[in-house]
C-alpha cells in the first residue's frame, strides 16, 4: 500500500498564511484543513463534516472563501491564506465579530469561524437585501442558533433592513 499510494508522496507547500510565509514538505494527500490545524498549528479553523458541506472549515484563499476540508494543501501552493486568527487586530474585534458577540450569534462557537470567513470574503455592497444575506449564510451550517441571531448580526453590521 505504501509503495502504491501516490497520496503518500511528499510535496513542498509554500504559502502565506495570515501574512506569514511558511514552507512545509507534506504528504500529497494532506488536506488543507489539516495543514492549517496540525502543520501550521492554527486551530481556529474547525472541521465539522470533512466532506465540504458544513462550512465550518471555511478559509479565504487568494480572496475567495473555500472549504479547507475538501482542498489539498498541495493545491494551494503559492497562495495567500487567511484564517479566523487574522480577523482581530491586536485583540480588537472586527465590527462583524463584535456584532456576533452583541447579537448572541454564537453558542457552542464551533461554526463561528466558518461564518466569519464566509462573511469576510464578500463585499457587503452585494448583500444589501435580506434575501441576499440569507442566501449567503445558507452555505454554512449552525446547529445552535437557528441562524436567527447570525442573520441579525450580519444585517446590523451591513445596514441591511431585516
Amino acid at each position, binding site marked *: 500500500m505504501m509503495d502504491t499510494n501516490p497520496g503518500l508522496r511528499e510535496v513542498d507547500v509554500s504559502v502565506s498564511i495570515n501574512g506569514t510565509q511558511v514552507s512545509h514538505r507534506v504528504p500529497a494527500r494532506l488536506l488543507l484543513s489539516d495543514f492549517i490545524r496540525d502543520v501550521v498549528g492554527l*486551530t481556529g479553523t474547525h472541521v465539522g463534516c470533512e466532506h465540504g458541506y458544513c462550512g465550518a472549515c471555511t478559509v479565504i484563499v487568494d480572496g475567495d472563501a473555500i472549504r479547507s476540508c475538501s482542498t489539498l494543501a498541495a493545491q494551494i501552493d503559492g497562495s495567500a491564506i487567511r484564517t479566523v*486568527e487574522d480577523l482581530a487586530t491586536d485583540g480588537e474585534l472586527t465590527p462583524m465579530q463584535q456584532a456576533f458577540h452583541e447579537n448572541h450569534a454564537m453558542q457552542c462557537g464551533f461554526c463561528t469561524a466558518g461564518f466569519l470567513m464566509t462573511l469576510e470574503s464578500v463585499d457587503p455592497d452585494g448583500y444589501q437585501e435580506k434575501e441576499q444575506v440569507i442566501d449567503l449564510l445558507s452555505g454554512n451550517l449552525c446547529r445552535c442558533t437557528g*441562524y436567527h441571531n447570525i442573520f441579525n448580526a450580519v444585517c446590523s453590521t451591513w445596514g441591511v433592513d431585516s
Partner: protein
Amino acid sequence: MTLDSPMRINPMIRHRASHIGRAVPRREDRSSLMGRQRYIADLKLPGMLEVSFVRSTEPHARIVSIDTGPALALPGVHAVFTGADLADVELFPQKILYIQPVHQPALAVDRVRYVGSPYAAVVATDRYVAEDAATLVATHTEFDPLPTVADLDQALADDAPRLFDDWPDNYLVNFPADKPEVRKAFEEADHTFSDTYVSQRQTGLPLECRGVLADEVDGEFTIWTSTQSPHIVRTTIAEMTGIPEPRIRVIVPAMGGGFGTKTHIYPEDVVMPWIARKLGRPVRWLEDRFENLVSAVHARDQRHDVDVAYDDDGTIRAIRCKAYCDVGSGEIFMPGTATVFVTGGVLTGGYDFRNMEVHHFCVVTNKTPSGAYRGFGTPEGMFVMERIIDRVAHLTGTDRVEIRRRMILQEEQMPYIMHGGGRVDSGSHAKGFERAVEMIGESLERVRARYADDPDVRVGVGYTNYVEPTTPTYHLTTGHWAGYDSATLRVDPDGAVRVGLGTTALGQGTETTAAQLAADALGVDPDDVTVVMGDTDRAPYGLGAWGSRSAIVMSGSILMAADRVMTKAQEIAAHMLEAAADDIVLTDGRFHVAGSDTPTVTWSQVATAAWVRTVDLPQGLEPGLEMSGYFEPPELEHLPGMDGKVNAAASWSNGAHAGVVSVRVSTGEIKIEDYVVVHDCGTMINPMIIDGQVHGGVAQGIAGAMFEHFQYDPETARPLFASFMEYLYPTCSDVPMMTVEHFETPSPDQPLGVKGCGEGGTIGPAAVVAGAVDDALSDLGVEIKATPVTPSAIRKAIREAADGGGER
C-alpha cells in the same frame, strides 16, 4: 430535599442592581470569535498516537475472522486491538431493572448488530495512516450475515430474527397497560377513531463530532472527552475497568454542541484509556462525520397506535396510546429506553386531560442505538396530541382554537398533576396560548393576502401548547438514584470568587449565567467571578448538563454554597467590626453593621483573614472561605409510587407555538411564513441566552418536522445515509425568522423560581407544521400523520386523499 435549600438570595445581601434577569453578554464568546477556543480536536500531547475504530459494515452478522496482519504490516501502525482483547471490559452497567439485560462488550466480540458498531481499533502515527489501516482490517474481516430486522414490524413479527439469543423476543421494554376508566369511556363515548402517528429517526448532530484523548502516567489517567457528564464517565470507567476512581481525571474541553447525544457513555470513552495504558502512550481518537452519523445515538424513531373516544361536542373522553420506540440495537449506556416513557407521560402537554392509557414498548432492531436528543420524547408526544385534537375538531366541526381553549390548563389548577404523575407546578398555559393566537392571527391575514392571487398556494395555521419537563431524575435513564448537582464557592484573598460546578458547558452559556448567579448570591460583580466546570479534578462531583437541568441545579447549589460562605464571612466581618454576626449586612460588596454605613470591611479583607491572616479570625474559627452546596431539587421523584405515577422532573416550563405555512399544491413545496413562540421558563437568569435556546430549539424542531430522516433499507437494514448530502440539516434558508415573547411565572418550588429552558423550542414545530399543512390543504382532505413533512410527503398525502375519496 435538604432542609436548608435556599429559595432566594440571602436577605442580608443588598445590591444596587441585580445581575440575574439581565441580558449579560457572554464571557465565552471572545475566544471563539478569535479562533482560540480549545476543542478536543485542538489538543495534542507529546508522543501521541491516533486511533481509528473499525466499524461493522454489516447490519447483523457473526464475526468469523479478523486478519489484522495486513494492517499491522503498514508502516506507521503501532497496534490493532479487536473485541477479543477487551472481552472482559463491559460497557453496560446492569443498573436498570425494568429492561432486558444488554451485555455489551466495549468492542463487539463475535457478533455485530448495526452498521457502525465498533469491533476493532487501530493505533498509528497519524489519523491518515490509522484510517488506511482501519480499512485494511475491515476488508480482512469475514462476516457471516444473519437475518436482519429493519423496523418495528419486522422486529415484532412472530418469526422475527432475535437480536439477543437469550431474550424471548425483541422487546427491550414491554409495559402494556389496562385502565378500566379508559375502557369505560370507550364504551360510553359518542364516537371513536383509531390511527397511527409516526415520528422519524433523526438526532442531535452537534457540529463538532465526538473525540477522546487519553493518557496514563504512573497509573493515573487523564481523559479528555467531549461529554455532557464528565463525572459519570469517570464513575462508569472506574466501574467497568476496575481502575480506582480517584486515579481517573476526566476533562471536557470546549464543546461544539451536544444536544443530548453526548450524555452517553460511549465505547470509545472506555477503550481509549485502555489503549493508553496498554501502549504507555497518549492516544487520541477524533470521530469523523460518517462515524458520527452511524455510531452516535439516534432518536425519535417512534410509532404511536392511538385509539380516541370523543363526543359530538368535541370533548375527548379517553386516549389509548401504544407507544413503540425503535431503539436500534440497544447497545449503549445509558440505553434509549427512557424517551418513550417521557412521551407517554407528557403527551397531554399543556392540556387538562387525564383519561389516558399508555402502553410503553422499546424494540431492538439492526440500527444504530437510540438515546438522548433534545426534547427527549416530548416532541414525539406533542405531535400525537395535537394531531388528535385537530382530528377531533375536524370530525366534530369544532373550531381548532376553541377546542384547545376548552382543554388548556388554567392557573387555578396549579399545581396540576398530569395523568402519569407529572406535577406542573405553575405556568401561563392559557394566557400564553391566547397571546400566540393573537400574534399569529395578524400574520395569517398578511400571508393570506400575499398569496390571494396565486391559486396554487394554500395557507394554513397550526398550534401547540406544550409543557417542558426539566431537571429530571437520573434514575429513569441510568439507574442512578440522584437528581442533584453541586457548586463549590471560594472567595480568594483578593476578594474574587471562584465557582466550581458539577454541571458542564456545551455551548449554552453556563459560565455567563453561573457568574450572574454567583455575583448576586455573594454581592459581587460578575467580572469578579470565575467559573470552572467540566474537570473532575477542579470541579465538584455532579451529574452533568442534560435534561434542561443546569438552571435549577446551578441556582440551588450556588445559593446553598453562597449562604454557607456568607454565614462564615459575617462571622469574620463581625469580629473585625467588633459587632455581632447577626447584625452584619453586605451592601454592594462591603460588610457593615446594619443601619450604619461605616466602618466597612471588604470581601478581600474577610478572605485575606480566612486564608493568609488567620490572626484576624475570631478565636476558634476554622480558616478558609470555601463552601459547597449539593442541591437535590424538591418535588423530584425517582420511582413511581404505588399508583404508578411519578413526578420525574423537578419543574415544568411551558410554551405555546403557532406557525403559518404556505403550501404550493403542484409541487408540495412548503414554507414556514411566520413562527411565534410564547415561552415561560419561570424566572429568567439571562433573557438573551434563553432566546438563543428557543431559537436553536425551534430550528431543530423544524429540522425534525420537515427535513431530517435517517432512512434504512427495509430489505437489508443498511443505512441509506453516509454524509450530510443524504441528511437534510437545515440551513439559514430553511429556518424562518421567529418572534419570541415571554411570560415569567416563577416556579413556587425551585430556587429563585427558575425552571429551565434547554429543550422547549424543539417540542413545538412538528405539531405546528403538521397542523398548519392540514389546515392549508383542508379542502383537499389531507391529513398529516408522520414526520418529516416533506414536499414528497405532501404530494403523496394529496394523491392519497384524492384516491381515498376524502376519508376525513
